């Protein structure tokens, strides 16, 4: 009998991906003044699908492949990091992570409820 539920494992992947998204954003922010640097990111939904389909199960999903983001306006020094895009991406990653945390808390609370069911 497993004490962790499948949903808890999936939430782990979800939070891992949110952290990876924040890392990509932090990379972009760190390189905002690096000449020739290109904004990096990954497709959150596609990576989540990959994690759910069992590739890299049990929470050890491989780090998502970072790709250069298209369609951004490059500055004369070849750098195309947009402060607005990164600010929004950071807020999004934080909210995703907090969502994952809340859901994980509920999930573990449910397991605890089941453990203490007889003492109620």
């Amino acid at each position, binding site marked *: 009998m497993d004490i962790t539920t499948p949903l808890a494992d999936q939430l782990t992947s979800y*939070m*891992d991906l*949110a*952290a*990876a998204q*924040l*890392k*990509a*954003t*932090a*990379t972009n*922010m*760190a*390189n*905002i*003044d*690096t*000449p020739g*640097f290109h904004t*990096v990111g990954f497709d959150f939904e596609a990576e989540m699908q990959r994690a759910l389909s069992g590739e890299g199960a049990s929470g050890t999903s491989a*780090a998502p492949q*970072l790709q250069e983001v298209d369609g951004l306006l490059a500055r004369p020094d070849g750098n195309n990091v947009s*402060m607005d895009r*990164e*600010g929004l991406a*950071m807020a999004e*990653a*934080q909210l995703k*992570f*907090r969502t994952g*945390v809340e859901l*994980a*808390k509920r999930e*573990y609370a449910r397991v605890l409820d089941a453990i203490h069911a007889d003492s109620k």
Partner: protein
Amino acid sequence: MNLFGLLGVSGSALTAERVRAEVTASNMANAETTRTADGKLFQRQHVIFQSAGPASNDVTTGGMLGGSFASTLQSQLSAAAWNGASPAATADEGGVEIAGIVTDQGQGLRRYDPGHPDADKDGYVTYPDIDPLTEMVDLMGATRAYGLNVSAVQATKSMIGASLDILK
């Protein structure tokens, strides 16, 4: 995925931007300097940034936050024949580092000041070609970029704090 490694990425940017602000401040402070340690005219300095590749743990350019702590701990643990899983400690991948500080080779500005001890035979003194406007804009850029990365650190901190909430 290691949230603490993320602090290293932002930390490297904080270090780099601070060096940039320091160099700019030094340029402004030396705007009238005609004598340096090697006896020559002060020349404007630029900081060159480059993105840090994987496994760079150069202490001078940051990365000591996530990088060397994690890897040092890891090597300590493996030295003690610890048999746990070995999480990949590739920190500050994706950060920024300073490729170098280059000195401008420009000519300098000539100003007529015959009483100055460094004046040439025509009475002109060569001062560094430093434009306060350029330096101030550079300083503002460094300050803003620093603030941007501080907010990234705050975001990471709140995520680490949130993940501790799972335990409660």
